[in-house]
Protein backbone atom coordinates (compact mmCIF):
# COMPACT_ATOMS: atom_id res chain seq x y z
CA UNK A 1 0.00 0.00 0.00
CA UNK A 2 1.32 3.41 -0.98
CA UNK A 3 1.52 6.11 1.66
CA UNK A 4 -1.14 8.68 0.93
CA UNK A 5 -1.13 11.62 3.36
CA UNK A 6 -4.27 13.12 1.92
CA UNK A 7 -6.30 10.29 3.40
CA UNK A 8 -5.81 11.84 6.85
CA UNK A 9 -8.25 14.62 5.96
CA UNK A 10 -11.10 12.13 5.78
CA UNK A 11 -10.53 11.09 9.38
CA UNK A 12 -9.78 14.45 10.95
CA UNK A 13 -13.31 14.95 12.35
CA UNK A 14 -13.23 11.49 13.94
CA UNK A 15 -9.76 12.05 15.39
CA UNK A 16 -10.76 15.45 16.73
CA UNK A 17 -13.63 13.81 18.54
CA UNK A 18 -11.14 11.41 20.11
CA UNK A 19 -8.86 14.31 21.02
CA UNK A 20 -11.81 16.02 22.64
CA UNK A 21 -12.34 13.00 24.89
CA UNK A 22 -8.62 13.03 25.71
CA UNK A 23 -8.78 16.71 26.68
CA UNK A 24 -11.92 16.12 28.72
CA UNK A 25 -10.38 13.28 30.74
CA UNK A 26 -7.16 15.24 31.21
CA UNK A 27 -8.78 18.47 32.36
CA UNK A 28 -11.31 16.94 34.74
CA UNK A 29 -8.81 14.35 35.97
CA UNK A 30 -6.10 16.91 36.64
CA UNK A 31 -8.53 19.26 38.36
CA UNK A 32 -9.28 16.47 40.80
CA UNK A 33 -5.63 15.42 40.87
CA UNK A 34 -4.46 18.90 41.86
CA UNK A 35 -7.00 19.06 44.69
CA UNK A 36 -6.20 15.56 45.93
CA UNK A 37 -2.48 16.16 45.50
CA UNK A 38 -2.59 19.46 47.39
CA UNK A 39 -4.42 17.82 50.28
CA UNK A 40 -2.13 14.77 50.40
CA UNK A 41 0.98 16.94 49.98
CA UNK A 42 -0.03 19.25 52.83
CA UNK A 43 -0.87 16.19 54.96
CA UNK A 44 2.68 14.98 54.34
CA UNK A 45 4.25 18.37 55.04
CA UNK A 46 2.24 19.47 58.07
CA UNK A 47 0.29 16.47 59.38
CA UNK A 48 0.94 14.61 62.61
CA UNK A 49 2.30 11.09 62.32
CA UNK A 50 -1.09 9.43 61.64
CA UNK A 51 -2.19 11.90 58.96
CA UNK A 52 1.27 11.79 57.46
CA UNK A 53 1.19 7.97 57.34
CA UNK A 54 -2.18 7.91 55.55
CA UNK A 55 -0.89 10.21 52.82
CA UNK A 56 2.40 8.32 52.65
CA UNK A 57 0.70 4.95 52.07
CA UNK A 58 -1.52 6.41 49.35
CA UNK A 59 1.41 8.00 47.55
CA UNK A 60 3.62 4.92 47.78
CA UNK A 61 0.91 2.52 46.61
CA UNK A 62 0.17 4.65 43.55
CA UNK A 63 3.78 5.47 42.70
CA UNK A 64 4.77 1.85 43.18
CA UNK A 65 2.24 0.33 40.77
CA UNK A 66 1.81 0.84 37.01
CA UNK A 67 -1.10 3.03 35.99
CA UNK A 68 -2.46 0.25 33.75
CA UNK A 69 -2.77 -1.98 36.80
CA UNK A 70 -4.54 0.84 38.64
CA UNK A 71 -7.00 1.23 35.76
CA UNK A 72 -7.62 -2.51 35.62
CA UNK A 73 -8.13 -2.57 39.36
CA UNK A 74 -10.67 0.27 39.27
CA UNK A 75 -12.55 -1.21 36.33
CA UNK A 76 -12.44 -4.96 36.94
CA UNK A 77 -11.46 -5.57 40.58
CA UNK A 78 -13.53 -2.90 42.31
CA UNK A 79 -16.87 -4.34 41.12
CA UNK A 80 -15.90 -7.71 42.59
CA UNK A 81 -14.54 -6.32 45.84
CA UNK A 82 -17.13 -3.68 46.63
CA UNK A 83 -19.80 -4.21 44.01
CA UNK A 84 -19.12 -0.73 42.71
CA UNK A 85 -19.56 -0.69 38.97
CA UNK A 86 -18.27 2.39 37.18
CA UNK A 87 -18.43 3.17 33.49
CA UNK A 88 -15.22 3.42 31.44
CA UNK A 89 -15.27 7.21 31.22
CA UNK A 90 -15.63 7.67 34.98
CA UNK A 91 -12.94 5.05 35.52
CA UNK A 92 -10.62 6.97 33.24
CA UNK A 93 -11.17 10.30 35.02
CA UNK A 94 -10.86 8.64 38.43
CA UNK A 95 -7.64 6.91 37.41
CA UNK A 96 -6.07 10.25 36.41
CA UNK A 97 -7.27 11.89 39.65
CA UNK A 98 -5.80 9.14 41.81
CA UNK A 99 -2.62 8.66 39.79
CA UNK A 100 -1.76 12.32 39.19
CA UNK A 101 -2.81 13.12 42.79
CA UNK A 102 -0.02 10.95 44.18
CA UNK A 103 2.68 12.56 42.06
CA UNK A 104 1.32 16.05 42.61
CA UNK A 105 1.31 15.37 46.37
CA UNK A 106 5.05 14.83 46.24
CA UNK A 107 5.48 17.95 44.11
CA UNK A 108 3.46 19.99 46.62
CA UNK A 109 5.35 18.54 49.58
CA UNK A 110 8.69 19.26 47.93
CA UNK A 111 7.73 22.83 47.09
CA UNK A 112 6.41 23.53 50.57
CA UNK A 113 9.47 22.07 52.27
CA UNK A 114 11.80 24.01 49.95
CA UNK A 115 10.55 27.26 51.47
CA UNK A 116 12.92 28.22 54.26
CA UNK A 117 11.70 27.27 57.72
CA UNK A 118 12.78 30.71 58.86
CA UNK A 119 9.96 32.32 56.87
CA UNK A 120 7.34 30.18 58.62
CA UNK A 121 8.92 31.04 61.95
CA UNK A 122 8.90 34.73 61.08
CA UNK A 123 5.18 34.42 60.33
CA UNK A 124 4.46 32.51 63.52
CA UNK A 125 6.58 34.95 65.52
CA UNK A 126 4.31 37.89 64.65
CA UNK A 127 1.41 35.87 66.02
CA UNK A 128 -0.11 34.48 62.84
CA UNK A 129 -1.99 31.20 63.13
CA UNK A 130 -0.45 28.30 61.20
CA UNK A 131 -3.09 28.40 58.43
CA UNK A 132 -2.36 32.06 57.69
CA UNK A 133 1.34 31.28 57.48
CA UNK A 134 0.54 28.64 54.87
CA UNK A 135 -2.05 30.76 53.09
CA UNK A 136 -0.13 34.05 52.85
CA UNK A 137 3.56 33.24 53.21
CA UNK A 138 4.54 29.67 52.37
CA UNK A 139 1.74 29.04 49.86
CA UNK A 140 2.43 31.86 47.40
CA UNK A 141 6.17 31.13 47.48
CA UNK A 142 5.74 27.37 47.11
CA UNK A 143 3.28 27.90 44.25
CA UNK A 144 5.94 29.52 42.10
CA UNK A 145 8.27 26.58 42.62
CA UNK A 146 5.40 24.21 41.90
CA UNK A 147 4.77 25.36 38.35
CA UNK A 148 7.64 23.66 36.46
CA UNK A 149 7.25 20.15 37.95
CA UNK A 150 3.47 20.48 37.88
CA UNK A 151 3.59 21.23 34.16
CA UNK A 152 5.66 18.13 33.67
CA UNK A 153 3.04 16.06 35.50
CA UNK A 154 0.24 17.59 33.42
CA UNK A 155 1.97 16.45 30.24
CA UNK A 156 2.60 12.97 31.64
CA UNK A 157 -1.04 12.65 32.67
CA UNK A 158 -2.28 13.85 29.30
CA UNK A 159 -0.27 11.12 27.60
CA UNK A 160 -1.34 8.55 30.21
CA UNK A 161 -4.92 8.91 28.95
CA UNK A 162 -3.84 6.85 25.93
CA UNK A 163 -3.85 3.80 28.24
CA UNK A 164 -7.60 3.95 28.54
CA UNK A 165 -7.65 2.14 25.23
CA UNK A 166 -7.59 -0.98 27.43
CA UNK A 167 -11.03 -0.27 28.89
CA UNK A 168 -12.51 0.95 25.63
CA UNK A 169 -12.68 4.69 26.22
CA UNK A 170 -12.95 6.43 22.86
CA UNK A 171 -10.05 8.81 23.37
CA UNK A 172 -7.53 9.77 20.72
CA UNK A 173 -5.41 6.61 20.70
CA UNK A 174 -8.45 4.35 20.72
CA UNK A 175 -9.95 6.34 17.86
CA UNK A 176 -6.75 6.00 15.86
CA UNK A 177 -6.69 2.26 16.55
CA UNK A 178 -10.28 1.88 15.33
CA UNK A 179 -9.64 3.78 12.11
CA UNK A 180 -6.46 1.80 11.52
CA UNK A 181 -8.26 -1.50 12.03
CA UNK A 182 -10.67 -0.57 9.26
CA UNK A 183 -8.27 0.71 6.60
CA UNK A 184 -4.77 -0.42 7.63
CA UNK A 185 -3.36 3.07 7.01
CA UNK A 186 -0.85 2.69 9.86
CA UNK A 187 1.66 5.33 8.76
CA UNK A 188 -0.86 8.06 8.05
CA UNK A 189 -3.14 7.47 11.03
CA UNK A 190 -0.46 7.03 13.69
CA UNK A 191 1.37 10.07 12.35
CA UNK A 192 -1.83 12.08 12.60
CA UNK A 193 -2.45 10.79 16.13
CA UNK A 194 1.12 11.63 17.17
CA UNK A 195 0.84 15.15 15.75
CA UNK A 196 -2.42 15.72 17.63
CA UNK A 197 -0.77 14.68 20.90
CA UNK A 198 2.12 17.01 20.10
CA UNK A 199 -0.27 19.90 19.52
CA UNK A 200 -2.00 19.26 22.86
CA UNK A 201 1.20 18.90 24.87
CA UNK A 202 2.68 21.84 22.96
CA UNK A 203 -0.20 24.10 23.93
CA UNK A 204 0.13 22.93 27.53
CA UNK A 205 3.88 23.67 27.55
CA UNK A 206 3.30 27.08 26.06
CA UNK A 207 0.70 27.96 28.67
CA UNK A 208 2.98 26.86 31.46
CA UNK A 209 5.91 28.81 30.07
CA UNK A 210 3.77 31.92 29.97
CA UNK A 211 2.73 31.46 33.59
CA UNK A 212 6.36 30.87 34.58
CA UNK A 213 7.45 34.02 32.79
CA UNK A 214 4.84 36.12 34.50
CA UNK A 215 5.85 34.86 37.92
CA UNK A 216 9.33 35.31 39.23
CA UNK A 217 10.64 32.41 41.26
CA UNK A 218 11.59 33.73 44.69
Amino acid at each position, binding site marked *: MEVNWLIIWDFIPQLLKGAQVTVHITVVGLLGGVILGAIAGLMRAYGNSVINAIAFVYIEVIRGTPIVVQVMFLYFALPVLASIRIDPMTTAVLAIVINAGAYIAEIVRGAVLSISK*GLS*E*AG*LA*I*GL*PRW*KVIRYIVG*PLAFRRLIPPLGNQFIVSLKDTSLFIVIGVGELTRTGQEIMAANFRAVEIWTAVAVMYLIMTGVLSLMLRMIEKRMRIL
Partner: protein
Amino acid sequence: MTDAIITFRSVSKHFGQLKVLDEVDLDIHKGEVVVLIGPSGSGKSTLLRCINGLEQITGGDLVVNGMSVLGGNKVLREIRQEAGMVFQQFNLFPQMTALQNVAFGPQQVRGMSARQARELARELLAKVGLADKADHEPAELSGGQQQRVAIARALAIKPKVMLFDEPTSALDPELKQEVLNVMRALAAEGMTMVVVTHEMCFAKQVGTRLIFMEHGKIAVDGRPGDVIDTPPNDRMKDFLQHV
Protein backbone atom coordinates in the same frame (compact mmCIF):
# COMPACT_ATOMS: atom_id res chain seq x y z
CA MET B 1 10.91 41.84 92.27
CA THR B 2 7.33 41.56 91.15
CA ASP B 3 7.41 43.29 87.79
CA ALA B 4 8.95 40.34 85.95
CA ILE B 5 7.63 40.25 82.41
CA ILE B 6 9.32 36.93 81.60
CA THR B 7 9.71 34.20 84.20
CA PHE B 8 11.52 30.89 83.68
CA ARG B 9 10.70 28.33 86.36
CA SER B 10 13.14 25.41 86.15
CA VAL B 11 12.66 25.32 82.40
CA SER B 12 14.16 22.34 80.57
CA LYS B 13 14.32 21.67 76.88
CA HIS B 14 15.28 18.38 75.32
CA PHE B 15 15.86 17.59 71.67
CA GLY B 16 15.37 13.83 71.85
CA GLN B 17 18.00 12.64 74.35
CA LEU B 18 19.92 15.89 74.19
CA LYS B 19 19.31 18.27 77.07
CA VAL B 20 19.69 21.80 75.75
CA LEU B 21 18.23 23.72 78.69
CA ASP B 22 18.74 22.32 82.15
CA GLU B 23 16.22 23.58 84.72
CA VAL B 24 16.79 27.26 84.03
CA ASP B 25 15.38 29.81 86.50
CA LEU B 26 15.33 33.40 85.31
CA ASP B 27 13.31 36.57 85.82
CA ILE B 28 13.45 39.32 83.24
CA HIS B 29 11.97 42.66 84.23
CA LYS B 30 10.43 45.52 82.31
CA GLY B 31 13.02 47.80 80.78
CA GLU B 32 15.91 45.39 81.12
CA VAL B 33 18.27 44.81 78.21
CA VAL B 34 19.49 41.28 78.80
CA VAL B 35 22.42 40.15 76.70
CA LEU B 36 22.83 36.39 76.35
CA ILE B 37 26.25 35.06 75.46
CA GLY B 38 27.90 31.68 75.49
CA PRO B 39 29.62 29.10 73.32
CA SER B 40 27.63 27.51 70.51
CA GLY B 41 25.42 24.76 71.81
CA SER B 42 25.19 26.37 75.23
CA GLY B 43 21.45 26.87 74.78
CA LYS B 44 21.27 30.65 74.41
CA SER B 45 19.30 30.67 71.16
CA THR B 46 17.04 27.89 72.42
CA LEU B 47 16.36 29.85 75.60
CA LEU B 48 15.34 32.84 73.49
CA ARG B 49 13.15 30.74 71.17
CA CYS B 50 11.35 29.16 74.11
CA ILE B 51 10.10 32.60 75.17
CA ASN B 52 7.84 32.94 72.11
CA GLY B 53 7.21 29.23 71.78
CA LEU B 54 9.16 28.61 68.59
CA GLU B 55 10.68 25.85 70.70
CA GLN B 56 8.43 23.97 73.07
CA ILE B 57 9.72 23.60 76.60
CA THR B 58 9.81 20.02 77.86
CA GLY B 59 9.96 20.76 81.58
CA GLY B 60 9.09 23.50 84.05
CA ASP B 61 7.05 26.57 83.17
CA LEU B 62 7.69 29.80 81.32
CA VAL B 63 5.41 32.79 81.84
CA VAL B 64 5.44 35.79 79.50
CA ASN B 65 3.40 38.85 80.42
CA GLY B 66 1.27 36.68 82.70
CA MET B 67 0.67 33.92 80.13
CA SER B 68 2.22 30.46 80.20
CA VAL B 69 3.77 29.13 77.00
CA LEU B 70 2.06 25.85 77.91
CA GLY B 71 -1.36 27.48 77.53
CA GLY B 72 -2.05 26.14 74.04
CA ASN B 73 -2.02 27.65 70.58
CA LYS B 74 -4.28 30.59 71.26
CA VAL B 75 -2.30 31.74 74.28
CA LEU B 76 0.91 31.17 72.35
CA ARG B 77 -0.29 33.51 69.61
CA GLU B 78 -1.05 36.14 72.23
CA ILE B 79 2.41 35.71 73.73
CA ARG B 80 3.92 36.16 70.27
CA GLN B 81 2.10 39.45 69.91
CA GLU B 82 3.80 40.62 73.10
CA ALA B 83 7.24 39.28 72.20
CA GLY B 84 8.52 40.37 68.81
CA MET B 85 11.44 38.45 67.34
CA VAL B 86 14.31 39.39 65.06
CA PHE B 87 16.20 36.56 63.38
CA GLN B 88 19.79 36.08 62.35
CA GLN B 89 18.74 35.52 58.72
CA PHE B 90 16.23 38.45 58.68
CA ASN B 91 13.53 36.17 57.20
CA LEU B 92 11.69 38.97 55.41
CA PHE B 93 8.81 37.75 53.26
CA PRO B 94 10.41 37.91 49.80
CA GLN B 95 7.16 38.34 47.87
CA MET B 96 6.33 41.55 49.73
CA THR B 97 7.85 45.03 49.67
CA ALA B 98 9.48 46.44 52.80
CA LEU B 99 6.28 48.31 53.57
CA GLN B 100 4.09 45.25 53.10
CA ASN B 101 6.41 43.21 55.31
CA VAL B 102 5.89 45.67 58.14
CA ALA B 103 2.18 46.29 57.54
CA PHE B 104 1.30 42.59 57.25
CA GLY B 105 1.42 41.77 60.96
CA PRO B 106 -0.71 44.60 62.33
CA GLN B 107 -3.29 44.03 59.62
CA GLN B 108 -3.50 40.25 60.05
CA VAL B 109 -2.92 39.99 63.77
CA ARG B 110 -4.02 43.26 65.33
CA GLY B 111 -6.97 43.71 62.99
CA MET B 112 -5.90 47.12 61.72
CA SER B 113 -7.32 48.46 58.48
CA ALA B 114 -5.01 48.30 55.48
CA ARG B 115 -4.60 52.07 55.54
CA GLN B 116 -3.82 52.28 59.24
CA ALA B 117 -1.34 49.41 58.90
CA ARG B 118 0.40 51.13 56.00
CA GLU B 119 0.63 54.37 57.95
CA LEU B 120 2.09 52.58 60.93
CA ALA B 121 4.53 50.77 58.64
CA ARG B 122 5.69 54.06 57.10
CA GLU B 123 6.23 55.49 60.57
CA LEU B 124 8.27 52.49 61.65
CA LEU B 125 10.33 52.39 58.47
CA ALA B 126 11.13 56.06 59.04
CA LYS B 127 12.12 55.21 62.58
CA VAL B 128 14.66 52.63 61.39
CA GLY B 129 15.88 55.09 58.74
CA LEU B 130 14.36 53.41 55.71
CA ALA B 131 11.49 55.70 54.76
CA ASP B 132 12.84 55.87 51.21
CA LYS B 133 12.99 52.09 50.83
CA ALA B 134 9.31 51.41 51.55
CA ASP B 135 8.53 50.11 48.08
CA HIS B 136 11.68 48.06 47.64
CA GLU B 137 11.60 44.29 47.82
CA PRO B 138 13.90 42.55 50.30
CA ALA B 139 16.17 41.27 47.52
CA GLU B 140 16.91 44.90 46.57
CA LEU B 141 18.08 45.79 50.08
CA SER B 142 21.42 45.26 51.79
CA GLY B 143 21.63 42.87 54.74
CA GLY B 144 21.68 45.72 57.22
CA GLN B 145 18.65 47.32 55.60
CA GLN B 146 16.80 44.00 55.56
CA GLN B 147 17.48 43.53 59.25
CA ARG B 148 16.20 47.01 60.02
CA VAL B 149 13.01 46.24 58.11
CA ALA B 150 12.76 43.05 60.15
CA ILE B 151 13.03 45.07 63.35
CA ALA B 152 10.28 47.40 62.10
CA ARG B 153 8.16 44.35 61.26
CA ALA B 154 8.56 43.00 64.79
CA LEU B 155 7.78 46.42 66.31
CA ALA B 156 4.66 46.79 64.19
CA ILE B 157 2.67 44.39 66.34
CA LYS B 158 3.46 46.60 69.36
CA PRO B 159 5.25 44.01 71.47
CA LYS B 160 6.21 44.58 75.09
CA VAL B 161 9.46 42.64 74.68
CA MET B 162 11.85 42.31 71.76
CA LEU B 163 13.82 39.13 71.24
CA PHE B 164 16.96 39.32 69.08
CA ASP B 165 18.56 36.09 67.89
CA GLU B 166 22.09 37.00 66.75
CA PRO B 167 20.75 39.97 64.76
CA THR B 168 24.14 41.03 63.39
CA SER B 169 25.89 37.67 62.92
CA ALA B 170 24.97 37.41 59.23
CA LEU B 171 26.10 40.95 58.46
CA ASP B 172 29.33 42.41 57.14
CA PRO B 173 31.17 44.41 59.82
CA GLU B 174 30.34 47.77 58.25
CA LEU B 175 26.62 46.92 58.19
CA LYS B 176 26.45 45.74 61.80
CA GLN B 177 26.55 49.28 63.20
CA GLU B 178 23.39 50.48 61.49
CA VAL B 179 21.46 47.61 63.05
CA LEU B 180 23.09 48.05 66.47
CA ASN B 181 22.23 51.76 66.35
CA VAL B 182 18.56 50.97 65.84
CA MET B 183 18.71 48.55 68.77
CA ARG B 184 20.46 51.19 70.85
CA ALA B 185 17.69 53.68 70.14
CA LEU B 186 15.11 51.06 71.05
CA ALA B 187 16.80 50.37 74.39
CA ALA B 188 16.92 54.10 75.07
CA GLU B 189 13.15 54.25 74.67
CA GLY B 190 12.88 51.72 77.49
CA MET B 191 12.01 48.65 75.43
CA THR B 192 12.58 45.37 77.25
CA MET B 193 15.05 43.41 75.17
CA VAL B 194 16.63 39.97 75.24
CA VAL B 195 19.57 39.81 72.87
CA VAL B 196 21.68 36.83 71.86
CA THR B 197 24.85 38.34 70.43
CA HIS B 198 28.61 38.26 70.22
CA GLU B 199 28.89 42.06 70.18
CA MET B 200 30.63 42.74 73.47
CA CYS B 201 30.73 46.51 72.91
CA PHE B 202 26.99 46.55 72.52
CA ALA B 203 26.63 44.36 75.62
CA LYS B 204 28.70 46.77 77.64
CA GLN B 205 27.17 50.00 76.36
CA VAL B 206 23.54 49.03 76.05
CA GLY B 207 23.04 45.91 78.15
CA THR B 208 21.74 46.28 81.69
CA ARG B 209 22.41 42.64 82.41
CA LEU B 210 24.67 39.99 80.98
CA ILE B 211 24.06 36.25 81.12
CA PHE B 212 26.75 33.73 80.21
CA MET B 213 25.32 30.33 79.41
CA GLU B 214 27.05 27.01 79.45
CA HIS B 215 25.73 23.46 79.03
CA GLY B 216 22.13 24.64 79.16
CA LYS B 217 22.57 26.47 82.44
CA ILE B 218 23.05 30.08 83.41
CA ALA B 219 26.67 30.17 84.54
CA VAL B 220 27.06 33.90 85.10
CA ASP B 221 24.44 36.61 85.58
CA GLY B 222 25.57 40.15 86.34
CA ARG B 223 26.15 43.73 85.25
CA PRO B 224 27.82 43.72 81.82
CA GLY B 225 30.58 46.14 82.81
CA ASP B 226 31.54 44.08 85.85
CA VAL B 227 31.42 40.58 84.42
CA ILE B 228 33.04 41.41 81.09
CA ASP B 229 36.01 43.19 82.67
CA THR B 230 36.45 40.65 85.45
CA PRO B 231 34.85 37.36 84.40
CA PRO B 232 33.87 35.47 87.54
CA ASN B 233 34.53 32.13 85.90
CA ASP B 234 37.43 30.72 83.91
CA ARG B 235 35.36 29.37 81.08
CA MET B 236 33.75 32.76 80.56
CA LYS B 237 37.17 34.38 80.61
CA ASP B 238 38.29 31.88 78.00
CA PHE B 239 35.15 32.49 75.94
CA LEU B 240 35.57 36.27 75.99
CA GLN B 241 39.13 35.96 74.72
CA HIS B 242 37.82 34.22 71.63
CA VAL B 243 35.00 36.59 70.74
